[in-house]
């Protein structure tokens, strides 16, 4: 009897192991499912004439076992620093946009899938800007646990300008703010420059700020980044990118002291002979004294005052009297 017991125990252990393996394999916690997104390019700007078609191939990547949806969503500028807010509404112009795939599955995590975007612009269309994002969103994975079902989305902006590109229209805008501190002792000097687009077509902040030292008459120019100023929105303009947390429009004075005049000059487009927009700010004036020079002046002043006080005390001391 005992001879037949050992194989049955081994068989039971084997079956138990198989059962455990199946349980573990089919009962993976959903938490482990990572959701990845990648889209290229990050930004697409198109100027197109009515009745034309434009094709572009996006490169999209994601996680396997997750279903993704690709679709256009209209957006509006959200703030002055280039962030946007996609809208839940679906304006008619989104009907012009088609993607070769609307649902995407990835066979492995590093797979890159090409998705063709086609924009068919009707002949009869209002000549203005239309803004949308190409949105890649993950479908939620259902479960019945107490907690949260997470999903995500990555959005790449598309700036669509519809006009006769051989005869582009004039842009409308203004410099709504240009200023700096009147007294500066720190390098660099920060300027605040905000452009407002009051028209229906975007323009770029191509141009410079011109700074003149009123003592030496020396003029320097600080080029601006040609940032997109979207229709009916404002944009803060910078001359640097890739700063830690906040970019600036900055200028490094080369002298220790100076009285300066600064003007912002915008010309769009910068390279063309056609001038669609030209903006000049009201001049602003400011003083710069280098920090160390300022400290030296203050120290000398402090010594002078101290010496005068000591001299005065000595002259009034009872011993001398």
């Amino acid at each position, binding site marked *: 009897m005992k001879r037949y017991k050992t194989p049955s125990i081994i068989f039971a252990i084997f079956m138990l192991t198989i059962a455990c393996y199946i349980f573990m394999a089919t009962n993976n916690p959903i938490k482990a499912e990572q959701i990845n997104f990648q889209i290229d390019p990050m930004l697409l700007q198109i100027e197109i004439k009515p009745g034309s078609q434009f094709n572009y191939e996006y490169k999209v990547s994601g996680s396997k076992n997750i279903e993704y949806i690709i679709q256009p969503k209209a957006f509006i500028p959200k703030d002055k620093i280039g962030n946007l807010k996609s809208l839940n509404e679906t304006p008619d112009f989104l009907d012009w946009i088609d993607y070769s795939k609307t649902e995407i599955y990835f066979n492995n995590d590093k797979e890159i899938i090409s998705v063709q975007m086609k924009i068919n612009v009707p002949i009869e269309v209002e000549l203005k800007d239309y803004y949308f994002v190409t949105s890649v969103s993950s479908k939620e994975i259902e479960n019945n646990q107490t907690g949260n079902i997470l999903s*995500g989305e990555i959005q790449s902006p598309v700036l669509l300008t519809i006009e006769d590109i051989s005869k582009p229209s004039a842009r409308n805008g203004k410099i709504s703010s240009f200023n700096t501190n009147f007294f500066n002792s720190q390098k660099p000097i920060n300027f605040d420059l905000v452009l407002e687009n009051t028209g229906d077509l975007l323009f770029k902040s191509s141009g410079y700020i011109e700074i003149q030292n009123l003592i030496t008459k020396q003029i320097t120019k600080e080029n601006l980044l040609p940032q997109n100023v979207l229709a009916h929105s404002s944009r803060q303009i910078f001359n640097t990118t890739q700063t830690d947390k906040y970019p600036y429009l900055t200028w490094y004075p080369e002298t220790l002291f100076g009285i300066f005049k600064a003007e912002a000059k915008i010309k769009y487009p910068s390279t063309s002979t056609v001038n669609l927009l030209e903006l000049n700010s009201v001049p602003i004036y400011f003083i710069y004294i280098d920090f160390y020079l300022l400290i030296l002046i203050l120290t000398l002043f402090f010594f002078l005052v101290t010496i005068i006080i000591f001299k005065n005390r000595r002259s009034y001391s009872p011993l001398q009297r």
Partner: protein
Amino acid sequence: MQKKVLIFILLLAFIFIFSFKRAKAFEAQSENFRLDWGNLNDFAGQKSSDNYSLVDTGGQIAPGLYESDGFKAMIGFEYLYSIIPFTFTISNSAIDFGTLSIDTPKTDTTNLIVTSGAAHGYQVTASENNQLDNLAYPGTYIEDTRGDNLDITYLNNGDWNINTTYGFGYTLANITGTDAEFTSGYKQFSDESNSEPEQIVMNNIGITQGSEVQVTYKINIGATQESGTYQNRIKYICTGTF
């Protein structure tokens, strides 16, 4: 005596000048990522129109700029050539708090990771479809927390340390970088069903590689909470700047 005083003042002034740390502003522009416009007269075979196909007859007149009779297209930022891809990772697709006990808070986490080559950065927003809802009795909620001082909303972060403060909320911590919108106290997720606009949880106004923020979810229930399975949906949206 007066000489000694003068020497002392001079010494003080000397220490003052040289120990004074100058405030430094950032000049973090990197030449690795900046590229002036050139005229390469080259192409990449991705762009076409019905009037014109760039692959056959046209070209790239500058990095990222393509032109034909019918359109002009610019890919990326003309003043910044970046090879950094735009990626976004959510570390998990669900949060399972398991069985909840009265007056015993539970937490769980999600890590958000972003790499962005956009000239002016990115932002990640978050929102919930509604408060944690009872699957068997819809409309019975574990409400979003108000915090220990009743000051927590989807806009304001506040303290939540007491075990008799109930509800659901989240806080943020920087793992890599400093992109978390706040790092102290807790907030409610903005509630779409209540028309609350999605809120920024993570952002940067520059190029970033592998910025990582940890979202910690916290839940706590009281004795009056209806038993059952409660669930909601949280959505994170990562957007590049224009």
